[in-house]
């Protein structure tokens, strides 16, 4: 699964994109795995109320299942326009 990070999440993780193999059943479970794995993720996912999720380029929630997902993205609330 490709995992993408944007804006300050990208900066904290230190990468815009990475391939992650995980058996985590949901987005929330994957976030817990990442947090435990490295300080960079712990910092990026410090406050989940400031993090938004997209699953295969569609807005999603943290309880979204990961089975069959090809692209998962994390980013802050959007500020375009």
């Amino acid at each position, binding site marked *: 699964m490709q995992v993408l990070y*944007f804006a*300050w999440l990208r900066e904290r993780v230190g990468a815009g994109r990475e391939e992650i193999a995980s058996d985590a059943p949901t987005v929330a479970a994957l976030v817990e795995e990442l947090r435990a794995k490295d300080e960079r993720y712990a910092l990026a996912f410090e406050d989940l109320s400031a993090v938004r999720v997209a699953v295969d380029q569609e807005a999603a929630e943290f309880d979204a299942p990961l089975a069959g997902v090809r692209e998962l993205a994390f980013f802050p609330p*959007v500020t375009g*326009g």
Partner: protein
Amino acid sequence: MTEPAPPTAPPTAQGPAPVVHVSVQAADFDIGAEIDRLTAGRADIGAVATFTGLVRDHAGGVPISGMELEHYPGMTEAALRAIADAARARWPLQGVTVIHRYGPLAPAARIVLVACASPHRGAAFEAAEFVMDYLKTRAPFWKKETTPEGARWVDAREADDEAAARWR
């Protein structure tokens, strides 16, 4: 990144099929040329409402010397097209144009253009506002401003969520 309307869309009694033009681009755009594109070849349009967003040289009293606009390639175009289609489903529109830039932008630079064509002025105005309100809260763009104290990510604004909520 330009996506013309599907060629299979049938013309209607009111003229050719509505055209959605969505582009996410680093380059600047020409508002007059975009309105010409939106209205070209048809005489059934009575109203064109546009919105152009520009980079301001200050924000909340802090000087801004420029900004960097990041986006999510692929999802951005799909989100803008979905917003344009939602506007077409809600108002009688003959065309919708949404252009959004990314990359480094200096003060006074154009950021975004929304243009809606309709037989009626109320529909054109409301659709343009609707597209802007949804774009502000749903299209995956992020602004990083350069200030005298360094660069900072712009915070999302509650007022934008409230503006989008009024269309529900």
